[in-house]
């Protein structure tokens, strides 16, 4: 070939090499930022109060890293175009007639497929480890024996604690608009859920009227409660503290106020609480929905549309209070 051709080819090689180096550099920078973002992701979550939360946060961190990488890559490319590939002011002509590039299209089909497989696999493994149980008991709620006891999780990630002797599940009664927890074995009830730390907590979720949702953000688990069914549910708290429990499935007028607290405490404190509460006379619990509703009935001014009357406040041995702080 001619000297010119040779020079062009050399130049192309150089440019190609420089381009590859540049791209690799940018990719590495992207990766570093993405990894950093993945670490930041932990800060966006509530405290890790359950074994499940450790798994979920790890999964979320991983997805944040991958997501950031893709986002920065694509947006970076777009921004480059927008900044440096604008048409000259009086240039009306068309750009190059590039209609496609098979190699590129194969890559950007294959890589996402691989990515989906990767993320799907990690998610599946996380789910497996969490062994979230949402088994639905048959309609007859009254029977005590409904479904076989839940399968033990394959691996206790955080604490490796063995499950102690079978404790009866705590019966969770959700209503419009209150929570009641019945410790059937001890014969007590409470509107604040108390759990011993590092022990598998098992529940029977029951709704007395409409759909509700049992959701503790600090535990990273949630389960809709379906009226007409008793749902088995379990989790493992690993950190002492008081956390928020919120109704997560829209349940009507005072849905937003249908909240209570979960207290995770040492085994001794838990036993102590059970004993104390058993000796307490049941009284009507503090109930935000009831209080607001009564107040609205007193004022003669019509402030809203008709609402379903709240269920009466549960009569419990121990009542939670909105004044208690939570994490």
């Amino acid at each position, binding site marked *: 070939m001619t000297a010119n051709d040779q020079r062009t080819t050399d130049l192309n090689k150089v440019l190609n090499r420089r381009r590859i180096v540049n791209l690799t550099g940018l990719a590495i920078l992207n990766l570093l930022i993405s990894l950093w973002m993945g670490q930041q992701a932990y800060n966006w979550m509530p405290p890790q109060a359950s074994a499940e939360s450790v*798994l*979920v946060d790890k999964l*979320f961190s991983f*997805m*944040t890293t991958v*997501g950031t990488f893709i*986002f920065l890559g*694509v*947006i970076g490319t777009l921004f480059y*175009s*927008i900044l440096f590939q604008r*048409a*000259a002011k*009086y*240039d009306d*002509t*068309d*750009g*190059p*007639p590039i*209609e*496609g*590039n098979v190699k590129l*299209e194969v890559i950007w*089909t294959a890589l*996402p*497929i691989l990515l*989906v497989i990767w993320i*799907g696999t990690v*998610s*599946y493994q996380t*789910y497996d480890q969490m062994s979230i149980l*949402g*088994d*639905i008991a048959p309609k007859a709620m009254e029977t005590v024996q409904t479904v076989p006891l839940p399968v033990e999780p394959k691996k206790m990630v955080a604490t490796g604690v063995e499950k102690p002797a079978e404790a009866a599940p705590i019966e969770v009664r959700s209503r419009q608009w209150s929570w009641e927890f019945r410790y059937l074995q001890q014969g007590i009830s409470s509107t604040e859920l108390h759990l011993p730390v590092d022990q598998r907590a098992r529940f029977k979720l029951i709704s007395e009227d409409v*759909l509700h*949702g049992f*959701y503790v*953000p600090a535990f*990273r688990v*949630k*389960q*809709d409660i*379906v*009226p*007409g069914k008793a749902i088995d549910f379990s989790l493992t708290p690993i950190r002492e503290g008081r956390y*928020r429990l919120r109704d*997560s*499935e*829209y349940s*009507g*007028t005072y849905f*937003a*106020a249908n*909240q209570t607290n979960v207290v995770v405490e040492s085994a001794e404190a838990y036993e102590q609480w059970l004993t104390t509460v058993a000796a307490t006379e049941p009284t009507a619990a503090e109930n935000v929905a009831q209080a607001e509703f009564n107040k609205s009935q007193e004022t003669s001014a019509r402030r*809203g*549309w*008709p609402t*379903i009357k709240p269920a009466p406040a549960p009569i419990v041995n121990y009542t939670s209070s909105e004044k208690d702080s*939570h994490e």
Partner: protein
Amino acid sequence: MSNATLEPLRPNQPPSNPSPEPGTPENWRTFFSFSTDHKVIGIQYIVTAFIFFLFGGLLAMVMRGELITPESDLVNRTVYNGLFTMHGTIMLFMWTFPMLNGLANYLVPLQIGARDMAFPRLNAAAFWMVPVFGVILITSFFVPGGPSQSGWWAYPPVSLQNPTGNLINGQSLWLLAVALSGVSSIMGAVNIVTTIFRMRAPGMGWFKMPAFCWTVLSAQMIQLIGLPALTAGAVMLLLDLTVGTSFFNPELGGDPVLYQHFFWFYSHPAVYVIILPIFGVFSEVFPVYARKPLFGYKVVAISSLLITGLSLIVWVHHMFASGTPGWMRMLFMITTMTISVPTGIKVFAWVATIWGGKIRLTSGMLFGLGALFAFLFAGITGVMLASAPFDIHVNNTYFVVGHFHYVINGAVVMGFYAAIYHWFPKMTGKMYYEGLGKLHFALTFLGINLIYLPMHPMGLMGMPRRVASYDPEFAFWNVLASLGGFLLGVSTLPFLLNMLSSWTQGKPAGDNPWNAIGIEWLVSSPPPHENFEEIPVVVSPPYGYGSDEPLVSNNPAGKPIAEAMSSSEMEGAIA
């Protein structure tokens, strides 16, 4: 010669023209009539829908006003619940679906070289149902008991509770309106599908059809398959509510979760009905303002159909926390994640279209880019949501609200604005004011990010959605979001100002102000009745930028071929 100007062959019209062209301000009365012209109907849909968009936005402003403080202190809780229910319902059924039908109606016949839709009168009838069910929905605010307060999903048993005990209540009116909306949509879908299958111009094989028409076809096919399932569920819910049957009433042996399956079997694919035409807008807009062909056009077209197919098998990802068994959660997690593949193909194709082009940042292009940005972000959080263990934490929290608003208000609304700025000159014959357009973009883009980005940490921290009040730890993010919301409200003002003043007083735009390649750009602005003097004969695939091939071999507007080709050059540079 003097006639060889911007509007050749359009003779001067006397003011009292018996059949003036749609889109010109002189014949505004046409837009209030039962016109069977797809261009008139398209504009009717768009304008009607936008009015409801503003109303739905107003409801959102009140909601953000409530949520700027943790307590329920602005409106009564029942009012707030009615607000979020009607906000969602109006935005979906009165704004998004009619608006997309409007764009499709206007553009599809022009882009495929047809004189009108297959069934013009059915078309008009379908449109006129929109104000009817809109009025029914608005009326529901005024009946005793107020509007529906069960969310736009209307999940039983809450939706069956009916505090007033009346037969005619907000919920039953809601169901009636949604049922009518379904009928109107089915009518539209039959029309559009028939038109695209049967009325493409000679020479326009499937792979010579613009990508916008591909996406519209895919979307309308979803409507045909999915809507009847929603109708079935809605009928059963209405019977439970009014007659006292027990389909979903657990006290009488019904199954509330079955309703969720009926509901989501349609409502998930519905979101692809919403986004697909916007994908089509991207595919039309980016080539014009980068002056490059759509990268991988054929694959982009086919991916629309892939999305249609996949969209029908992912719905249970809305029910990961509903008590679905583990195998179901895993199955639908896989299918949901898979749908990101054909979607990703499109995104990369658009980036590659833009790359190396000669980019012009007109208002249409800016909104297209902003919409793509929003969609990319939402797509990533969407894949996160597909992951069942993660979704169980954020399901029914503001994380989801942030995700879908990035799509619906970010990608879809900004995509809509891109479409309007791009085709406004064609529809009206006038040019809009570019400065106002850029201002509109800046305010909108800032507002979208300010309102919806904070919703992600809110949700991660555990703030549920649909709440009239919240715990104080969420206050900071909510204040940011509310500020963004108010900014969004304000951002519509330059747009309204621009549209109204440009339509009446803007400069004449000419046939092809963007120098774009497409059959719609070969006819006058606005196009004449029945669109073409001669049906075009298509000889090339679309997006032939950078090559010399003509799109058509004849003169659809009645101009000589040479003049048809060069007229695009004569239109001059874009601002």
